[in-house]
């Protein structure tokens, strides 16, 4: 039989089995699994079996129900899942019935919702709002207008300074390169700087650049102040406000 264990930090506070009747979770003491914390709504969530699957349903709680860090309104539970309610979490032990086993393989486990779906506007807004609240700190850091800039400190190039406004930047002799390197026997693409979701990465072209004196073979994330050397050109990577 499936079992729910209410945990606070690493300690088990209470255990309840899930049978045919739903298990109610909330701050009010008449719940099957009372959770004594102000962040928990009086009737916060419930867990029950439906068609052989163990399901958790949020009862419009103020602070939400999370399954493995993801806020849910309703979700199928699997053995080993954690339901987070406030600072408490509830460990799901469904090993007894093992109705919906997880594939543990990294790649094999990928598509758990088989059908692709699009969130409608309301659901999307809610999910993004929630996401925004959690990610606020990160958003602000990225929100300040900082333009990544290459400042040439040595060697011959067509400009002294380049603002990296495109997703892809090529450093080389090619007429189409953003940073045009001058001189004989310079490679068409000496190196490249690409923008990714989490920052700017320098990668090799026909030559291997060095970042702060260290040669790089694959893409390396650039940090404010890094010194790049390639094909006789020395540049400083900085973020300009």
């Amino acid at each position, binding site marked *: 039989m499936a079992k729910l264990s209410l945990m606070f930090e690493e300690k088990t506070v209470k255990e309840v089995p899930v049978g045919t009747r739903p298990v109610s979770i909330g701050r009010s003491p008449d719940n099957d699994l009372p959770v004594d914390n102000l962040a928990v709504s009086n009737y916060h969530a419930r867990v029950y079996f439906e068609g052989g699957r163990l399901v958790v349903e949020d009862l419009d709680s103020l602070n939400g129900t999370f399954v493995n860090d993801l806020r849910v309104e309703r979700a199928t539970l699997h053995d080993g899942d954690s339901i987070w309610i406030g600072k408490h979490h509830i460990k799901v032990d469904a090993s007894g019935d093992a109705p919906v086993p997880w594939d543990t393989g990294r*790649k094999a486990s990928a598509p758990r919702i088989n059908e692709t779906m699009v969130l409608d506007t309301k659901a999307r807004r809610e999910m993004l709002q929630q996401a925004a609240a959690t990610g606020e700190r990160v958003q602000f850091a990225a929100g300040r207008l900082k333009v990544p800039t290459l400042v040439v400190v040595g060697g011959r190039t067509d400009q002294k300074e380049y603002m990296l406004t495109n997703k892809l930047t090529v450093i080389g002799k090619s007429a189409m390169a953003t940073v045009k390197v001058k001189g004989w026997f310079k490679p068409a693409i000496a190196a490249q700087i690409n923008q990714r979701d989490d920052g700017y990465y320098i990668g090799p072209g026909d030559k291997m650049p060095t970042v702060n004196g260290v040669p790089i073979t694959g893409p390396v994330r650039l940090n404010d102040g890094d010194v790049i050397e390639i094909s006789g050109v020395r540049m400083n990577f900085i973020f300009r406000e």
Partner: protein
Amino acid sequence: MRIVSGGVTDVGRVRTNNEDCFRIVESLDLFVLADGMGGEAHGEVASALAVETIVKSCMDPGVDAGATLVGNSEPTWSEKTKRLTSAVHRANKNIYDAAEANPEQHGMGATLTAAWIDGSKLSIAHVGDSRAYLLRSGNLQQLTSDHSLVAEQVRRGILTAAEAEESEMQSVLLRALGALPDIEVDTDEHVLFARDIVMLCCDGLTRMVTEPEIAGTLQAEIDPTKAAEKLIALANERGGVDNITVIVVRVGAESRGWFSWLFGGARKRAARNGAAGGS
């Protein structure tokens, strides 16, 4: 720029129908890929409608007689970029209207990733979680952003990339063609260099095969169609849980000077023997 391309689609190992659709228009250097959704046969309807609308709008400028560009466009964009973006808006509307008109098709939709090459300029238009990649000097760079919930959570710093790969919410999209009457299209322009490889693929590939494996296959296999086939075989080996579609586009060296005059003939003969590609 000399362009060689090939594309392959496969139903995978789990599904019984293929909801993906792609088209290579060699005369235009236009490449379009769509991944349909909506159950029954409606995903196929949506993806086919998306691809057909894009190809038609891009082939026949008359459809888009100058002023009738749909959606927002940046003044700096090239004519082709504008036309491609407009075509995606049009495809969205066509799918939405079709779904509204036929109740049984309600909820159908499609992702769309399109690339149009004009000389050394690459225009990309994109909605959904299919992807465009650029392989340049051994570096594989994703050109598009996934419009999925997990990708958005990674961008906002809520999930790590590794957690996103494990998430059961991977199939939840924030944007797709046909879901709403109006849509935001991601548009980008890039400069292409000789020896660049552009790849379009649906999530059936990227959920099964890692980026280093994609980069390795594209570098090892010169023939675009064979490269696409190898990537699909790899995805199927891993389980092939979804339909898989891959388009590979290789940008050749600029033909000029006595060197290419000397070898041009041999190259032409080799190209004629290669697979034609396209559907």
